């Protein structure tokens, strides 16, 4: 009976649960799914991580390439993030050129990295004007059960923590750039954690933490907050859907602060 209801009236199914104060998978409204992060397992990548958040699984791989820095910025390297949603991750995803969702996620990751200044671009330029690292950060969603944003940010941060940059030397006599087999640690300015909430108005406005795919599709809008370890906010994103009041934003902030502690713990365990 409930399976028919779930398939034929998915919006009502989610709504009835939220009205009663819990979710289809039994979680409380403010409860996040347990997160597990592991890093450094992909040996062909220079940095990597896998994040599992309930059923949502996201893999991140970082590849390094050496390049000449731009003439107008001779001391900075390049960071090129890309998020892919392959057709295997969910029945609704078709194969073909990147969808608007994938492009939005790529832009989101780029904004998080730039806004948080996680990496000092000067760290990526071992020899100014001659050699700069290009970080190709590829995030691939293997299983899409909602809230890829949070998983993707966790995967990127974990991969960056596992990244080791080879030391680069410049031989001025031979005018050659040599990549040695020594490694230099990449220091991250701070850790960031993303917390996304779905917003559903069932008479009162409810914030739903870490929505599943089923919930994400059927809600009025979503807010994402990216917080530093210190508690300061790095990025806030909400667009369209239900207009958000200041109160809702504040509640989201409070929830995000408590929830990010768990993810921070998981990130710190990696090293």
């Amino acid at each position, binding site marked *: 009976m409930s399976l028919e209801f779930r398939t034929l009236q998915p919006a009502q199914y989610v709504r009835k649960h939220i009205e009663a104060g819990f979710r289809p998978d039994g979680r409380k409204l403010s409860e996040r799914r347990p997160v597990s992060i592991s890093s450094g397992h992909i040996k062909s990548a220079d940095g990597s991580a896998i994040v599992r958040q309930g059923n949502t699984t996201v893999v991140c791989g970082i590849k390094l390439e050496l390049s000449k820095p731009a003439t107008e910025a001779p001391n900075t390297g390049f960071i090129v993030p*890309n998020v892919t949603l392959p057709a295997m991750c969910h029945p609704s995803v078709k194969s073909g*050129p*990147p969808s*608007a*969702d994938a*492009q*939005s996620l*790529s*832009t*989101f990751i*780029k*904004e998080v990295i*730039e*806004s*948080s200044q996680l990496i000092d671009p000067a760290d990526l330029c071992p020899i100014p004007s001659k050699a700069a690292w290009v970080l190709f950060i590829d995030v691939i969603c293997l299983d899409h059960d909602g809230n890829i944003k949070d998983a993707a940010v966790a995967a990127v941060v974990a991969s960056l923590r596992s990244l080791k940059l080879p030391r680069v030397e410049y031989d001025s006599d031979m005018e050659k750039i040599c990549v040695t087999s020594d490694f230099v640690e990449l220091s991250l300015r701070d850790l960031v954690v993303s917390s996304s909430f779905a917003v559903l108005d069932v008479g009162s406005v409810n914030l739903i933490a870490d929505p599943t795919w089923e919930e994400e599709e059927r809600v009025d*809008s979503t*807010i994402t907050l990216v917080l*530093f370890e210190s*508690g*300061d*906010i*790095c*990025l*806030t*994103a*909400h*667009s*369209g*859907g*239900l*207009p*958000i*009041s*200041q109160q809702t*934003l*504040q509640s989201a*902030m409070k929830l995000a602060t408590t929830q990010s502690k768990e993810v921070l713990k998981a990130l710190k365990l990696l090293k």
Partner: protein
Amino acid sequence: MSARYDGRMNNQLRPQKASQGILFKADGSARFSFDKTSALCAIHGPLEPRYPTVNSNLIVRVITSSGSLTSPSTMSLAATLRRIFSNVIHLPFQPRSEIQVAVTLESDLGEFALLASSVNAIMLALMDAGVACTKTVAAVCIGINREGKVVLDPGAEEAKGLKSIHTFAFDNHDKSHMVFSSGEFTLNDMKISTVTGGAACRMVLGFMRNVVTQKAERDQKCLL
């Protein structure tokens, strides 16, 4: 309070310019600019949709000044604008039809204010096209500088030196339709910038009201 790079005070927006009905083939068009940060919007609709749906379908395309249509940032911006205007346009008004919105970003300094200009240009173009809307929205960019002071409508270079940047879109009922904040800020910063953002959006809505009124008066004179 010391003056900023262009002589403005912290609570002053850049001079706004807007015009409607500038493209003859489009059903509605408008250009909106905060000084040099300018966006041009063309609306075509209602059109025959590819797949008829109960509510009319909204398609938003964003093109940069260099002609780029499908880069991640333009597709992301288009998705954002679509989410905002799906709530502004009264989509059930014309079922089984399509409304196409094409936005051209006319400057490429990478300013945050381009998002705000795009929202304002689309709103004016919708009014020019006579598309049924349930509310009017206006967007504005706010910054918080290193001294913790709120700074309205930062320029491209000025924005690089700020501690955080917030782009807001509020409607005529003072409800927030879009918040994009980045940088480093606290909950208190968010509260202050939201209040300032709301007030600034009201100012821009007032400006848009003037533009529409003046155009209506001009059109009346032409008819007589």
